[in-house]
């Protein structure tokens, strides 16, 4: 099908394009931008006056809960939520049940995703068998099955030696290793940042050093092995500074941060708000500002949703007994755009952190609007209000502290591979 979208403000942070210009789509790809090629006869014309058109969002960390925890959410429910949030590609971490440590799980997830709304579901393979942190997973087979990277989710590795060998082995197949920077023993039973709030509430804390000590070990091994490593979900200013320095030194490392870390702090945990129980924990205002600056400067080149939907029982209990995580797919774009509103960074840079930035980390062709790129894009009405209400929420997990917030601008359509994956319901678009 050939489609011509006219009069949209087209923003492509990957190329720096920001202009009202036509976009031509042929089949699943972008045929042309800027000028309609001669002889192009669109079957359909879309007048997108007043709307923005930008690349579909690439989310580096979204738990869809399938297989294994379908009582929390399913690939079908969560890809709908993703599409509503303007996300066209999600990466599923390997800690499903069973974990993604063999081609069977990769294929299962791909098959389920094909039956869903069209959002691309990519998988991250396990670094170690069963995520137990001891024996290596069969990474070559995982790569053949289609994983975009390997990692151990947030499960600990038995020793730095296992990490070293895993990095070396993954590098053999040019597989990126995605790691969490959180030392398990320094974390202990901690459930909040170790600081003034943990002291006040008497909750076991996770010190900053749990992140920086682990990160120091990871960076030393990157230097040793030359492996390509991505650090998933930083939480401290100091950690962001270490990544910035390592990148400046030329190490092949990148990092992302969860969108909620840029807005919430340890103070939001008081008094025992289970919706703000996340891992890594919300830290201090100083950490939040440090993370924001690193995102603005591009030292942290991706912002992810860190989507972790839960059934309501998971959040009903004394704080430490509740499950960590925020359902984040539907607020990734609004929160990222809020950074622009708050004057932290220009629109194009903010969009880059959720499109070209994460796509480049994975080496994907998406996240851009160039000719020949997949026709994954978002139509966005900057004038409308986006009230986050329980009624309009699509994720099966309603565990979000942002429900009740109002954001400016909302997604009207999300397209994947030249087809709409989500359209704003007519009664809402008035």
């Amino acid at each position: 099908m050939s489609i011509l979208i006219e009069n949209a403000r087209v923003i492509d942070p990957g190329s720096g394009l920001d202009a009202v210009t036509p976009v031509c789509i042929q089949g699943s790809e972008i045929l042309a931008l800027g000028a309609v090629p001669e002889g192009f006869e669109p079957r359909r014309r879309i007048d997108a006056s007043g709307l923005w058109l930008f690349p579909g969002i690439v989310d580096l960390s979204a738990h869809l809960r399938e297989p294994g925890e379908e009582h929390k959410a399913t690939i079908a429910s969560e890809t709908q939520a993703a599409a509503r949030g303007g996300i066209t590609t999600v990466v599923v971490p390997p800690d499903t049940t069973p974990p993604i440590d063999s081609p069977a799980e990769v294929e299962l997830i791909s098959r389920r995703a094909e039956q869903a709304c069209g959002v691309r579901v990519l998988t991250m393979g396990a670094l170690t068998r069963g995520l137990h942190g001891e024996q290596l997973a069969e990474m070559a087979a995982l790569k053949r099955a289609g994983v975009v990277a390997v990692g151990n989710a947030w499960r600990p590795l038995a020793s730095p030696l296992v990490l070293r060998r895993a990095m070396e082995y993954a590098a053999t197949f040019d597989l990126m290793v995605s790691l969490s920077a959180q030392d398990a023993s320094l974390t202990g039973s901690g459930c909040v940042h170790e600081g003034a709030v943990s002291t006040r509430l008497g909750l076991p804390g996770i010190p900053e050093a749990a992140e920086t000590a682990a990160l120091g070990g990871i960076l030393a091994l990157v230097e040793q092995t030359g492996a390509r490593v991505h650090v998933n979900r930083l939480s401290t200013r100091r950690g962001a500074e270490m990544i910035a320095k390592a990148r400046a030194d030329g190490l092949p490392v990148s990092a992302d941060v969860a969108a909620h870390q840029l807005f919430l702090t340890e103070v939001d945990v008081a008094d025992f708000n289970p919706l703000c129980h996340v891992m890594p924990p919300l830290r201090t205002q100083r950490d939040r500002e440090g993370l924001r600056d690193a995102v603005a400067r591009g030292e942290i080149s991706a912002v992810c949703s860190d989507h972790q939907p839960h059934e309501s029982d998971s959040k009903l209990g004394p704080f430490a007994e509740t499950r960590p995580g925020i359902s984040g797919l539907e607020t990734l774009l609004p929160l990222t755009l809020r950074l622009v509103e708050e004057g932290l960074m220009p629109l194009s840079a903010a969009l880059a952190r959720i499109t070209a930035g994460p796509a480049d980390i994975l080496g994907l062709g998406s996240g851009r609007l160039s000719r020949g790129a997949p026709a994954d894009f978002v139509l966005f009405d900057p004038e409308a209000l986006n009230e986050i209400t329980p009624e309009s929420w699509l994720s099966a997990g309603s565990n979000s502290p942002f429900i009740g917030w109002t954001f400016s601008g909302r997604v009207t359509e999300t397209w994947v591979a030249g087809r709409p994956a989500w359209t704003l319901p007519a009664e809402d678009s008035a």
Partner: protein
Amino acid sequence: MIPVAAPASQLPQAGPLPNSLQLTPDGRLQHLLTVEGLSRDLLNEILDTAESFANMNEKAVKKVPLLRGKTIVNLFFEASTRTRTTFELAAKRLSADVLNINVSTSSAVKGETLLDTLRNLEAMNVDMFVVRHQQSGAAHFMARHVEPGISVLNAGDGRHAHPTQALLDMFTIRRFKGDFTRLKIAIVGDILHSRVARSQIHALNILQTGEVRVVAPHSLLPAHVEDLGVHVYHNLEQGLHDVDVVIMLRLQRERMEHAHLPSEHEYFQLFGLTRRRLHLAKPGCLVMHPGPANRGVEIDSAVADGAQSVILQQVTFGIAVRMAVMSMVMGVRGS
């Protein structure tokens, strides 16, 4: 854009401030979850009310009909003898019906959630829960989820708070020492894991105590403890100098297993309260301990049983303070 308030829904909501959760709109005590945030007036009102019950407790007939017909459940998820029995006695002296439930040996092991336990007991038309739980925030959680009109008293939640213990300690100090503004008070020991210490620190600061000190090795102090309004000492001799009251905390045996300390022996050498060390404090310095004491670990028997010790009075006053809190949350006053 400014975030606007969420519409009412069945979703778990962000928590209100401790005060709005434990106080009624007109400022009366609805639950007692934490000392933090209580006004000085309210704290004094509790102590004054306890004073009237303390006098009554010394009489031959120790019972008043203030809570006749009310049902109080002591819901203990952690073992306790002293706290549970004093709550039970307090309830009985107010003529309430009391039910003791030790959940560590019943539902929790069968996988029943705290909320299920709560709902089942509520169905039995309970008026008040006295809850002790190993998790910080458990009492807040219950208060947020109980039916209107039911009160929750926190009898200790994790490392967070033990408000009635702190109140009975304040009662004891007030009885023996009077004006808090002139006092220097040291809390010695495992501050990191202590809900008692946290509640005491809040209470002492609300009562505008002259100086509040904590004395402990770094490994037993929580991060930014000075933000709670205390002066930090790592040396017991210095920490005891010129104090009017010393409160010793219990040292749990498992602290050695988790590398907080090398040994009980070394702890006693450095932080144990002995007669010799007590001489460094002001003459007549009160010695307090929330119990149960580890003799020879944090306190020498000669001190625990000595003339300056008010450890047993603390237990006695605990009944009056708990009667005061129970009657106040039920909206009745003793006289």
